[in-house]
């Protein structure tokens, strides 16, 4: 075989051209951008404009029923909240804490007779107007929805627990273990979590989407009132306007949307 440099280079050029043309249809075939993908027809997002969910909690209603855990049981059953054997690993969506811990600034020696230092108060995520947890999240796994609900995307949570440090209310819990074996009875309609994610109350976003009240409110409508704070005709709006209201650590500027009152 005898060839000049000139002919060899010519041949190389033609071969390169031919290769680039001939592989094109093969690459197209392998490409994921085939026309079938355009068939995914998702409707555009329609946010609930001008809505802001909030909750009012009657402190005295809980007093009447000592050791009542109806709201906690309802929530934790619906959301597959695990019960870990060690108290340190506890997962809490809604729970009870002593009055002196919930409202440290209101704690003094001469409180009215009904509410004492160790009176249990129902607490949950405050779904703050300015949530510090969402600011510190490095993956944006937690964010505030248009309707005010502070959500966690468990798919995206990397378990760094910055949000737990950011939350002044201790409303977030971390799964140190696979929670599934510790869920007393699994509710199929709601996913469990997995090891290494943070979880908390979601104001029952999945139930609101179905037109239902949050599970805790359904279990105890006398103590818990849920509604749209910006709707002037809502029951919660009426209560907030006509009662003396306290919030948890309002001086921090988080703007908690869970309000506490006592019925006279």
């Amino acid at each position, binding site marked *: 075989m005898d060839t000049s440099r000139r002919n060899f280079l010519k041949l190389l050029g033609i071969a390169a051209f031919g290769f680039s043309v001939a592989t094109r249809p093969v690459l197209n075939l392998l490409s994921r951008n085939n026309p079938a993908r355009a*068939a*995914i*027809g*998702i409707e555009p997002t329609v946010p609930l404009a001008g809505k802001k969910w909030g909750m009012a909690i009657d402190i005295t209603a809980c007093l009447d029923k000592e050791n009542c855990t109806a709201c906690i049981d309802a929530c934790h059953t619906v959301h597959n909240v695990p019960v870990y054997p060690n108290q340190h690993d506890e997962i809490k969506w809604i729970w009870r804490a002593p009055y002196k811990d919930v409202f440290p600034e209101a704690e003094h020696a001469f409180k009215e007779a009904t509410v004492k230092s160790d009176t249990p108060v129902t607490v949950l995520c405050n779904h703050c107007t300015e949530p510090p947890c969402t600011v510190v999240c490095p993956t944006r796994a937690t964010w505030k929805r248009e309707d005010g609900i502070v959500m966690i995307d*468990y798919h995206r949570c990397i378990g760094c627990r910055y949000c737990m440090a950011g939350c002044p209310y201790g409303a977030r819990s971390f799964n140190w273990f696979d929670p599934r074996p510790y869920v007393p009875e699994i509710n199929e309609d709601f996913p469990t979590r*997995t090891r290494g994610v943070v979880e908390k109350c979601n104001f029952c976003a999945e139930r609101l989407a179905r037109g239902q009240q949050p599970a805790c409110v359904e279990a105890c409508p006398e103590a818990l009132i849920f509604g749209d704070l910006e709707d002037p005709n809502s029951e919660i709006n009426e209560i907030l306007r006509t009662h003396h209201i306290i919030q948890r650590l309002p001086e921090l500027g988080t703007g908690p949307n869970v309000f506490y009152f006592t019925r006279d």
Partner: protein
Amino acid sequence: MYDTGKIVTGLVIFLVLISFPIWFNAAGNASANLPEPEIVTDEEQCIEDTEFMKAEHMDLLIDWRQTVVRDGIRTYVASDGRAFNMSLTGTCLSCHSNKEEFCDECHNSVGAQPNCWNCHNIPEETE
């Protein structure tokens, strides 16, 4: 060029060896190890056509995840106009209730390990 005969012979042997998977499968062995997912439902049609679901179900599910969790929209309108609740356990598994014979069949074959089931429930396993 020296030793043309040896070089060409070597090239031919090399090409035959490197293309072994192609002509071996072309000779009719390709289907021997293909997974055969079992469909147990009485429904005639999945939410989209079968070819699309085979190729794109993973992207569809990611879209669903994003739309439900981030945007709060829970209804999927299929290309033929039918509406579905975007739910892995609620919608997909209501027909494909045999996860082991349906999902795992292909996933095991291609070595895919989706972590959906770490959280999402498989009905018969939770009973």
